[in-house]
């Protein structure tokens, strides 16, 4: 049965585990015990769901995309609106869960890594809301690229710590956050932003994100007689996808994870970990990753900062290997086109990350029947991507009229 994953060693089939310096084994054990207790505690779960509802704005809407459906022809398109979450993406669901757990464990300080800044903002947000001290590790290159989110975190009271090691991007920020945690695990809680990292993180983050799928299942039943034929979600680390997929794993629904093909998976510039990577260890977990022949991790590329990660959650590696989930890859250009289409037809500007899922779905629906339905997880809103979008579309829209 799928639901018994991960096993006691934190394995999803061949993947997962805890590949960490000895100093972290204690803190991970402490985390696991606290997590297991918390997830059995009605009061904890109640508080988590209460905060989701009265603070984050859940449940997020399930929107029927009537216009885009008409435009494309074929299966009916439904959108799960994680873009309506407070702070603009699904990331907050997990941040809330972990922050509540940190508080419960008596840790007054949290650390987090961030690439584009979405998880950093979510972490800074829960730190403010729950009165925790917050340090966000962020690559120097990303700090330059995401000035606005850096400011936002600081305004929320978080300290943003520039990481100059490596290439100064997400992978390096994660390394540095882990190093800092190693040295300061006694009173610090490390709030990881996706279903990656050593056990129990992949399980914990999935469980704090499964609210997406749980809600979708319930909402879908209210509006359609049958479950969707396919569900699409983009995959960076894989948290929005796992959160969406998990409650559907044992249902008869085709699940499609969409990676970033960047400039094309036949070029060196992509972030299609499952399509082009190989198994290995990254950030404490055995999973697929992008690496050279010597096992050195390589720098990924995607136009969307949130998918620009050389690894992937170990549960995805397992679902890939077991073929339960189909994984596809979408290029920058395809994602941008899908973003534009959704914007023009539905008045929803999605995050470029989410646009990868949209693009794959938009490719497929015209070949499906009108009786079928599909569901796409719109993991976040596009506000954060405006600078990028302007670069790509400014001329086009300026000449539209």
């Amino acid at each position, binding site marked *: 049965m799928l639901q018994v994953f991960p096993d006691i*060693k934190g394995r999803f089939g061949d993947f997962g*585990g*805890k*590949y*960490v*310096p*000895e*100093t972290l*084994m*204690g*803190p991970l*054990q402490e985390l696991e015990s606290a997590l297991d207790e918390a997830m059995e505690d009605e009061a904890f779960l109640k508080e988590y769901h209460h905060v989701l509802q009265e603070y984050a704005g859940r449940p997020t809407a399930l929107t029927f995309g009537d216009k885009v459906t008409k435009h494309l022809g074929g299966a009916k398109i439904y959108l799960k609106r994680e873009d309506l979450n407070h702070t603009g993406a699904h990331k907050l669901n997990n941040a809330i869960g972990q922050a509540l757990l940190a508080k419960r464990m008596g840790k007054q300080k949290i650390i987090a890594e961030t690439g584009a800044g979405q998880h950093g903002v979510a972490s800074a947000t829960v730190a403010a809301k729950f009165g925790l001290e917050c340090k966000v590790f962020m690559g120097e290159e990303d700090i330059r690229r995401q000035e606005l989110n850096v400011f936002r975190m600081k305004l929320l009271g978080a300290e943003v710590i520039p990481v100059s*090691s*490596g290439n100064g991007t997400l*992978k*390096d920020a994660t*390394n540095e956050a*882990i*190093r800092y945690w*190693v*040295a*300061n*695990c*006694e009173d610090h809680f490390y709030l990881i932003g996706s279903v990656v990292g050593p056990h129990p993180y992949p399980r914990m983050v999935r469980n704090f994100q499964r609210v997406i799928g749980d809600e979708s299942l319930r909402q879908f039943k209210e509006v359609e007689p049958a479950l969707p034929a396919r569900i699409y979600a983009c995959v960076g680390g894989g948290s929005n996808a796992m959160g969406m997929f998990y409650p559907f794993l044992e249902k008869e629904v085709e699940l499609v994870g969409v990676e970033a093909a960047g400039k094309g998976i036949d070029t060196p510039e992509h972030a299609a970990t499952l399509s082009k990577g*190989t*198994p*290995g*260890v*990254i*950030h*404490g977990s*055995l999973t697929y*990753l992008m*690496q050279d*022949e*010597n*096992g*050195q*991790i*390589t720098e990924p590329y995607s136009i969307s900062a949130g998918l620009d990660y050389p690894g992937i959650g170990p549960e995805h590696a397992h679902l890939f290997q077991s073929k339960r989930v189909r994984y596809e890859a979408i290029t920058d250009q395809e994602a941008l086109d899908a973003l534009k289409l959704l914007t023009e037809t539905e008045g929803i500007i999605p995050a470029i990350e989410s646009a990868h899922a949209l693009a794959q779905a938009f490719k497929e629906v015209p070949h499906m029947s009108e009786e079928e339905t599909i569901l796409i997880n719109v993991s976040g809103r596009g506000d954060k991507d405006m600078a990028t979008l302007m670069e790509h579309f400014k001329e086009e829209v300026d000449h539209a009229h």
Partner: protein
Amino acid sequence: MLTKTAFQGKVTKTNQLFIPFVVAGDPSPEMTIEYALRLQEQGADILELGVPYSDPLADGPTIQRAAKRALKAGMSLRKAIELVPEMRKQGVEIPVVIFTYYNPVLQIGHDAFFDLLEANGVEGVLIPDLPFEESEEVRNLADEKAIEFISLVAPNSEERIKQIAEQAKGFLYCVSTLGVTGERNEMNAEALNFIKEVKAYSPVPVAVGFGISNYEHVKLVNDHADGVIIGSKIIRVIESGLEKVENDAKEEALQDFSKEIKQLMNG
């Protein structure tokens, strides 16, 4: 006083162990051999030969910089292992422990990796991100090949301290303070208590690492443990000589190096 056997008798000294760490290929394979020879001259008992890695989770900025230099110079896990016979040829006799992150090992494959270690006469291996729970297969392979698989314990390993210490091979690496590698100015009293506990369980010498950067540290550690592991400090000495090495003043750099190491170990 050291009484336990380690490295199949190759470590036979009865005084304290001196275990230096260098990064293979920093700044070049040739220089790594030179430094190894100088360390041996200064009384090193075992050499930890670090394999540079793109994402060294357990290392501080100093070792990260060294890894970057070595990667730039083309070093890899395979090349690092193949550097060992070269060292031998040039006179390095002390046991060599390959220090590598797990991912490069995985890419070679467990069996091939141990074949490679064996073929090149490597005495030990240390994988900082392969904790006890994940290392059973590797430990068995090491045993088969009679290669010492070096384990680490940390003050927060708690009930696992006993488990890890009891199965330790070669020497047991004690993380003296929480944190990644680097130089610190004070030794921690709690850490000393922890060393005592570890020694009680360990069948092999207990060496202390992480943060040893001057003679005071060395003395303090030697008062309680069976040896010291010194990494970042040595890398910094190497770093301070980089300019000379580049400017064809290699001999001078090596002399400086020896002097500094001597000072570090003997005050």
